């Protein structure tokens, strides 16, 4: 048994973080955040060169064939940099949807494009994920109609992958969908409402148990969001610790005040165990099928709650500077807010965990 990262994982993590540090300084982040599309062509293409997009794509389709833990580590790094990259939908959820539910021919058509960064999928789960916002889609004879509200990673999507209530997914070309774009509270990722009017759609029919396959995609998505939240919260905590070591008030470095010191101690006590939790949940998606759903629900819910506290407290540590736009700390605060609400909030995730364990029967 080895509960830790491999050398390869640490090396990829180092290179991804170094790349993001170089390519996404605060002034660049501000520019990209202004449009709020959650996408930048240069950044996207450079990440392709780094091999990010093919992380989960099997080697025979041009990817690296790695696992969800690898994908989650990358998500943590992206969250840590507040990177405006439609990673969740395209790199993770769409890839897994094709692996789990598509025919060999469909895989052959799309997976190499994903790995090459040539397409960007946004994945929508009306109802299954338990988001607020009314959504409803119907599939008939190769066409999709209806509306899906609150789709993430769709700011520059080339394709939509829409899940139907029965767990089947269908691919729609973005050109055939009508979208309403919203800059979101988190300017590094938008929210898009998608309307489909008899849009030509390719259904993925290869899964024996479509609902279970859909859940594998959703579960992985939740772990990825949890990892992104962890990276974001860690950024805020690191920034607050650094600030507390420099800032002088009342003639003292503020980090020497017990009040502030204890706040930071509480943050690290809550946040650090979340890293192990995230690793475990990510590993479980590939290796421990019995625990996959439960750990995904809990990782999403617990990280959301811990990170909300960390976001507030670390902003407070920065004093007035934390509340202004000047330091840009708020990008992470808002990324944590965004992550909390997509793919089902903590309340929903925990209720699913209760269902999984049969804890809702009264007698």
């Amino acid at each position, binding site marked *: 048994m080895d509960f830790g990262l491999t050398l390869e994982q640490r090396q990829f993590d180092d290179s991804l973080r170094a790349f993001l540090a170089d390519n996404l300084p605060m002034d660049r982040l501000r520019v990209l955040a202004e449009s709020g599309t959650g996408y930048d062509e240069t950044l996207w293409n450079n990440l392709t060169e780094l091999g990010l997009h093919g992380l989960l794509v099997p080697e025979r389709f041009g990817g690296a064939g790695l696992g969800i833990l690898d994908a989650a580590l990358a998500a943590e790094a992206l969250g840590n940099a507040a990177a405006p990259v439609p990673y969740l939908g395209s790199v993770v959820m769409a890839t897994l949807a094709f692996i789990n539910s598509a025919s060999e021919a469909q895989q052959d058509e799309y997976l190499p494009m994903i790995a090459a960064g040539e397409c960007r999928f946004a994945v929508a789960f009306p*109802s299954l994920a338990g988001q*607020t916002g009314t959504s409803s889609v119907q599939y008939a004879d190769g066409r999709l109609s209806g509306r899906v509200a609150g789709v993430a990673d769709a700011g520059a999507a080339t394709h939509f992958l829409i899940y139907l209530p029965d767990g089947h997914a269908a691919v729609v070309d973005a050109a055939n969908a009508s979208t309403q774009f919203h800059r979101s509270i988190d300017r590094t990722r938008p929210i898009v409402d998608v309307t489909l009017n008899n849009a030509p759609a390719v259904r993925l029919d290869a899964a024996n148990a479509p609902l279970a396959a859909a859940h594998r995609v959703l579960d992985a998505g939740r772990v990825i969001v949890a990892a992104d939240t962890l990276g974001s919260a860690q950024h805020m905590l690191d920034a607050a610790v650094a600030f507390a070591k420099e800032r002088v008030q009342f003639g003292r470095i503020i980090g020497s005040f017990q009040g502030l010191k204890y706040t930071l101690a509480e943050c690290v006590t809550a946040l650090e165990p979340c890293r192990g939790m995230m690793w475990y949940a990510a590993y479980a998606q590939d290796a421990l099928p019995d625990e996959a759903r439960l750990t995904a629900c809990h990782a999403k819910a617990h990280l959301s709650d811990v990170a909300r506290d960390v976001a507030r407290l670390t902003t*407070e540590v920065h004093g007035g500077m934390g*509340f202004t736009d000047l330091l840009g700390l708020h990008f992470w605060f808002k990324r944590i*807010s965004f992550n*909390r609400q997509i793919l089902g909030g903590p309340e*929903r995730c925990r209720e699913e965990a209760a269902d999984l364990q049969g804890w809702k029967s009264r007698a």
Partner: protein
Amino acid sequence: MDLTLSEPYRILQAEIRDFIRQHGDKSPKVGGGRKRPDQKTLDWQKRLVENGYAGRTIPKEYGGFGATPDVMAAAVIAGEFARANVYAGLTNQGISMLVPTLLELGTDEQKRQYVGPTIRGDIIWCQGYSEPNNGSDLANAQTKAELKDGHWIVNGQKIWTSSAHYADMMFLLCRTEPDKSKHDGLSYLLLSMKSPGLDPRPLKTMTGRNEFNEVFFTDVKVPESQIVLGRGKGWYVANVTLKHERLMIGDAGKMTARFEQLISLLQTSEIDGTKLIAMPEYRDRLLRLQGEVMAWKAHNLRLLTEAAQGVDSGVKRMIIKYGGTMLGFRLSSLAVDALGAAGLPYESLGEDAEDDDATTWNIDYMYDVGLMIGGGSTNIQKNIIGERGLDLPREPKAAGRA
């Protein structure tokens, strides 16, 4: 303990209901309020002052309604406006902080000049307290004012000045006695934001709006008479002002209104066709908050009664800002969770128009974090509660430090 309405208050209640029936349609929307009031709001405010529903206890000579302080009347008024969901009048730093400070410590001339226009919303004030390097340590203000030829010449810089970009006047804490000790060297001046040499630069906050400013002073001239109470008394005056600010921030009426909005939000939001209020995991949080809001409202009634009796409420008053800010944040936290993914679209229209509900709640959620920092941070509040409220010893001075 008597919460029943005796005859005069039942008459007052009937009058208010009549007023609202007649004029309620002219009320601006409840909530918001971090913008310069528009004409509709000013008209409404004037109407409120004329009828004694705002500025009620301000003496007539200073532009108020001249009623004697009466907690019951205030409670009846607040209650009726809240019940009808009608705008109960402006609350801003001028009205909530500067006016009571002037009434307590100002000269007759200062009261005549500023109180009336301020309560009518014609003069908007901003607060010149914090500086870039003193954050929570307000007494350490370095902006200085020198008296020359009948004018104070002000030089320095302030920060976190909310509404400076649209305010008419500022109340300013500055150093006038450089030879005296930290706390005894300060004075409290009133100055026009149109003074030459005064340069407010908007400071965008995390909400995306310009809620604060940096204000730069270069040889700004302020007439000598524009001082409150006198030279070296600035720290005392500022503390009187801050006391009123803390009460404003923890306002129970705001909590109640917010809680009522939260109930409707949970009654109208759905996931998969089920109302959130019917989902115990949301409802239980709402219920906990209902208990907290109940306690907060009752506490507020207690403070109002003590204030009417001229009792100093001590620690009971000092907990208001800290407790109120945290409660406000818990309320807005549940709101953004109830909005969920559907509440993520965010475009604040700033001062140009009404934001949508989701954006407003998200702004509240963030602004509440700002309130934990501004007006004396959460930690400063806890120091005040511990040291002044519970009489715990102060932190010893560090050896060999300032």
